């Protein structure tokens, strides 16, 4: 017959709920039933055995219970981690505009999206360390200029921004937006992309 404390360990592990002294005594056939004192002593021994282990013996109102110490809660919590919610379309569009059109002001993002960009979105992106302020546009109000970070590149497995997938132009390049407009007249790089559009 196994040692008393080992039987108690097995019973407590199988129970998965607090067990009173009476219930613990009840698992032994009458002839083998230990004294209450012996039971208490065995439980105390168990508690000592668990020092430095992933479980502990706790006495609660309804009896004795085995538990996982709170020191392990970060690992245990990750077991049931809720699946990450998806980012909103607004956030993704904002991030995309910053990635492809950086450096860009919030006003410029709003001009393209046609709606205002919430501060929450900018905050989330900054907290995730995907975007940062790289300067200010020298226009009235000196709006901040946003750009993506190295963390952003790492996350998407990119060595540099030039590895971003090419953006095929919308049908009419004329209508893309202020920032774009400015660039097209000056740089030929982006207009090369434009000419690929089959619709013109």
């Amino acid at each position, binding site marked *: 017959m196994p040692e008393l404390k080992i039987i108690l360990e097995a019973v407590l592990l199988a129970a998965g709920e607090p067990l009173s002294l009476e219930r613990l005594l009840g698992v032994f056939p009458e002839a083998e039933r230990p004294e209450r004192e012996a039971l208490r002593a065995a439980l105390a021994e168990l508690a000592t055995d668990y020092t430095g282990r992933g479980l502990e013996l706790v006495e609660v109102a309804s009896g004795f219970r085995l538990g996982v110490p709170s020191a392990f809660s970060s690992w245990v919590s990750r077991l049931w981690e*809720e699946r*990450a919610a998806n980012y909103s379309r607004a956030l993704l569009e904002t991030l995309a505009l910053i990635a492809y059109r950086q450096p860009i002001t919030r006003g410029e993002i709003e001009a393209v999206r046609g709606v205002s960009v919430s501060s929450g979105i900018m905050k989330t992106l900054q907290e995730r360390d995907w975007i940062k302020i790289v300067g200010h546009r020298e226009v009235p109000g000196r709006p901040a200029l946003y750009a993506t970070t190295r963390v952003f590149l790492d996350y998407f497995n990119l060595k540099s921004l030039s590895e971003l997938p090419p*953006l095929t132009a919308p049908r009419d390049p004329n209508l893309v937006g202020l920032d774009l407009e400015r660039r097209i007249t000056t740089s030929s790089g982006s207009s090369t992309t434009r000419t690929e559009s089959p619709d013109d």
Partner: protein
Amino acid sequence: MDTPLQPLAKVDGEPYTQLPHDLYIPPDALEVFLETFEGPLDLLLYLIRRQNLNILDIPIAAITRQYMDYLALMQELRLELAAEYLLMAAWLAEIKSRLLLPKPAPIESEEEDPRAELIRRLQEYERFQQAAQALDALPRLEREIFVASAEPPHRESTRPPPPVGLVDLLNALREALARAELFDRHPIRRETLSVRERMSQVLERLDALRFTAFTELFQPEEGRLGIVVTFLAILELLREGMLELVQSEPFAPIYLRRRG
């Protein structure tokens, strides 16, 4: 194998753990017993085992008689007799009659022993009776083994940041740009330049005899829109065969003239 049927019944307070060797059992005691058969194959296996017979060597005549006796008993007890029992009775009778037929001629000796199929099925069923017992004997949760668990610690609510794919990013940008297009178009304004109008203007400027440089047709002060409209007008005129386009070598200046 012992069927897990015991104790069979109590008759006049006496528990029966073994069926009497003769078939006569008080009907009310038998009822319980008969109902526990899992079907005709089970009943047949029981009859064979009861007499310690080898499945391979069943005396068809004797077994058939016993089977029929049980069936008669079941009917007497008005047990719901499943069609399977009656089918088996018919089969047994058929086997019996075929065995009684005169010895087959040599040519027909390829024919199977009429009992072969029955024996095959009895054996197959017996294998799975044993498998079921073996399965039942396996230690299983909540009977011999128990999951060991301990109360989880208080949970930290952790929510990982959502994953984003590069494609998501690209799609988001496309959508934003597509919407931007709609936005920009909405302010209704008169179209300042129409391609048709520009086609006429281009034609006016061109000569049927003299070539005109392609670049001369564009007026930078009109802006991008003007340039695009002029370009479209030229393409349309070429398509309609109203212009002739000449370039002496790649990258050389392009010249145009009107088709006479």
